């Protein structure tokens, strides 16, 4: 397998090569008459391995290139992309973008980011930690991870596998204001998904770890055991009667609720008036104990970035301070549409941190007292225009702070604006495995539909 090992861990191409490509694309755009242009070139490599019931199931080598360009002729624009880096492909791609720009309408808000907002400093955010992972090592770790789950309890009877993946990528972005920047990143993960079974049926659950640096991953054994525990605790799930109760969202789901908030204050939703949070800047959206910070420069952060996807410098800020909405999530275009300034969020937010409260999981169950602890959600029943929220759920019925039994085949419903205002407690049991770091959220009241 030695040839394959070389293939999997070969280094990324030199950044100079990608910078030259970006410069070539911008030069070609100028030659073809564009008044301004921006381009991004990317390269990524990954190795992923899945082991199921102790045997290798898949071994995948990924290697992907990309090249994208947007040209402007005054205020009209066109975009095109390809995976082909040859000079003739660059010419053709720019030509496609220019052909489109001849047919699109002028938009006074269109254009590159304002030059004074472009990043001038590129702090090293420590995002690149390549893992010279061989196929053999990957297989061994995935096997160890799955075995920890399979051996935890005899009721773990089946598996969807343990897996390991290691990804490295490099993206260079440049525009005709003279900006050119980019940096390599890595992302490594461990996953495990197993099935517990008893006379009542089967229940599946999973767990994962993800980090920029493999040394910061949870151990394979810890990931496997947690997957098994989560599957086991679902055995014997019942339904609930329809009622209104307080609901405790587990941290990995609380992050999703904050995600809906972010989606509702994005520039695109706001200028289209497609959000239930219009015109709320400066108004309380959450209770006063909720503060949400954006920290784009956290070392090794999963959503860290020195600049956004149009080159605008990122900076620390508070999105929500003491419950009050302090800022929107804008790129240059949506900012111009709203008569505001970009917030450096082209491409998304960069590490949102919901300030943790004083309580851990046990105390949160006590505070929930009698109600529903939600650990899984199913479906996409979220309407950001109206704020209506209705999703399938599974979790545990809690009485007087004690877990009584697992529940499933129920829905939880409410209105997002009320749900945000109805947050009673933020937990300190933060899940840091994503771009939004949040602890459990205890909500005063939602409608549970069941029997």
């Amino acid at each position: 397998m030695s040839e394959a090992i070389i293939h999997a861990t070969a280094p990324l191409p030199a950044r100079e090569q990608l910078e030259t490509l970006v410069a070539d694309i911008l030069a070609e755009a100028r030659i073809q008459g564009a008044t301004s242009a921006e381009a991004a070139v990317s390269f990524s490599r990954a190795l992923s391995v899945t082991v199921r019931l102790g045997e290798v199931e898949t071994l995948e080598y990924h290697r992907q290139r990309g090249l994208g360009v947007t040209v402007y002729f005054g205020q009209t624009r066109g975009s095109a992309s390809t995976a082909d880096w040859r000079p003739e492909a660059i010419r053709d791609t720019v030509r496609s973008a220019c052909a489109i720009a001849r047919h699109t309408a002028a938009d006074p808000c269109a254009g590159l980011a304002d030059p004074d907002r472009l990043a001038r400093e590129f702090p090293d955010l420590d995002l690149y930690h390549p893992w010279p992972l061989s196929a053999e090592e990957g297989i061994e770790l995935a096997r160890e991870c799955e075995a920890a789950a399979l051996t935890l309890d005899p009721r773990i009877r089946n598996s969807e596998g343990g897996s390991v993946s290691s990804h490295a990528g490099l993206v260079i972005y440049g525009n005709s204001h003279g900006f050119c920047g980019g940096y390599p990143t890595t992302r490594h993960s461990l996953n495990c998904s197993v099935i517990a079974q008893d006379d009542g049926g089967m229940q599946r659950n999973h767990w994962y770890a993800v980090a920029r640096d493999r040394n910061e991953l949870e151990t394979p054994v810890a990931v496997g055991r947690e997957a098994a525990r989560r599957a086991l605790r679902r055995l014997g799930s019942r339904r609930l009667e329809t009622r209104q109760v307080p609901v405790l969202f587990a941290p990995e789901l609380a992050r999703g609720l904050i995600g809906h908030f972010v989606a509702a204050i994005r520039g695109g939703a706001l200028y289209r008036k497609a959000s239930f949070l219009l015109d709320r800047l400066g108004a309380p959206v959450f209770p006063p104990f909720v503060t949400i910070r954006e920290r784009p420069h956290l070392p090794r952060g999963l959503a860290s970035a020195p600049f956004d996807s149009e080159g605008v410098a990122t900076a620390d800020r508070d999105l929500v301070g003491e419950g009050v909405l302090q800022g929107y999530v804008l790129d240059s275009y949506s900012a111009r549409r709203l008569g505001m300034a970009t917030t450096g969020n082209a491409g998304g937010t960069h590490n949102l941190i919901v300030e943790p409260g004083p309580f851990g999981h046990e105390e949160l169950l006590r505070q929930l007292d009698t109600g529903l602890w939600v650990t899984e959600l199913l479906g996409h029943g979220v309407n950001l225009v109206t704020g209506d929220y209705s999703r399938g759920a599974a979790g545990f019925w809690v009485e007087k702070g004690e877990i009584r039994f697992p529940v499933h085949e129920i829905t939880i419903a409410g209105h997002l604006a009320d749900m945000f205002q109805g947050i009673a407690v933020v937990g300190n049991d933060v899940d840091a495995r994503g771009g939004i770091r949040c602890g459990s959220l205890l909500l005063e009241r939602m409608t549970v539909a069941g029997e």
Partner: protein
Amino acid sequence: MTADTLALACQQLLVPAGLGEDDLHRALSCLLGHAVDGGDLYFQLRRAESWSLEDGQVKDASHAIQQGVGVRAISGEKTGFAYSDEIVLPALLEAATAARAIARHGGDSRLQVWQATQRLARYQPLDPLVTLSAEAKVRLLERLDAEARRQDPRVTQVMVSLAATQDTMLVAGSDGALAGDVRPLARLNVTVIVEHAGRREQGSAGGGGRIGYGWFLDEDRALGYAREAVRLALVNLDAVPAPAGTMTVVLGPGWPGILLHEAIGHGLEGDFNRKGTSAFSGRIGERVATPLCTVVDDGTLADRRGSLNVDDEGTPTQCTTLIERGVLKGYLQDKLNARLMNVAPTGNGRRESYAHLPLPRMTNTYLLAGDHDPAEIIASVERGLYAVNFGGGQVDITSGKFVFSASEAYLIENGRVTCPVKGATLIGNGPDVLTKVSMVGSDLQLDAGVGTCGKDGQSVPVGVGQPTLKVEALTVGGTQT
């Protein structure tokens, strides 16, 4: 017309790279040389465009080209996979070398003689991108904007998107499979926002298929999407909070067939059943629905979004009966899972692209018509929900629990459809939801061509359909207790 899609695919994929049959043999031999049981090479070229309108103007559009070759090596239940976005011999051989690393030991396999799949024409091998001029695309989008705004003064925003791909694929397998296909796919969507007395609602409508853009102009289909989007949004302006609890639900015809996709289809995919992880595992021959229910997956329907001439492993698509008069009949198979389960593949091996592995996936999944008049079905319900439009859905195939979210629904009171209710998620249990189907309408419809299915991070276009159905008990996730 029966086009020679294999020749077309060779012309587009192999000729520009200077690759011939000998090179395919060489790459496959390189795979098998390592004692791999089998494998395949999947070449693909996809050209895509999208045009979008807002504020009454087309201000954004893009064009994309994606191409490459994926190489898969199979040894027992093991799969090795590598790909390259350059279609040239050295990259092909490098990918083959990487993929074959999966097999340290194993079978003694020989390359089979090429056997080109018979020519099929479920759709024309056209390039939808060139079926309208750029000017005409812009005009079409502008007309839809005007049509939507003309419907009602409460329309405040109109967003229209037009998108198409031409996907050319060629697959060569060590089992002798050799097939090529040219797959057009076009889609048009209109979304509007309406505003009245401080309340805002959204409505979306659209359609598409394996067709050229001209199809949207036929029978005023495109204008119909604009009107339908406005109608939906206006209905929701009057919607009251949805009920919460278990009740009788009447599902309308067409797109509500997402019920079958989530509740039944995924659970019958071969991989989950081979591994025993589906709530339907080992249940062939058992009753899983009332005798009124017959469910099929049919990849052969003309011009449909979910249709294929051959799947991504070169197997011709077919109409597979999943449930016949209430009894579970069969699973959806790709080659790997069919072989391991010792059954025939069903033409359901699909992949998002050359950079993804094939998996058993649905094509067009629907429930056959019954003999009840839809009006009679509604009249039979004293109190319940009538749900006619849906957003997405999801299923946990192991526990069998599934959801799908209504975007247009009404109360049924004393046999009559009364007021509209807000969108709500419906939840049920896949293996028994069809045992609660008490009436099946005569009005079978397929959806308008808008479905995309996600599995293991891979998206593929699919279709669904059904007649009006009465389900005696489903849980409706509203807020009113």
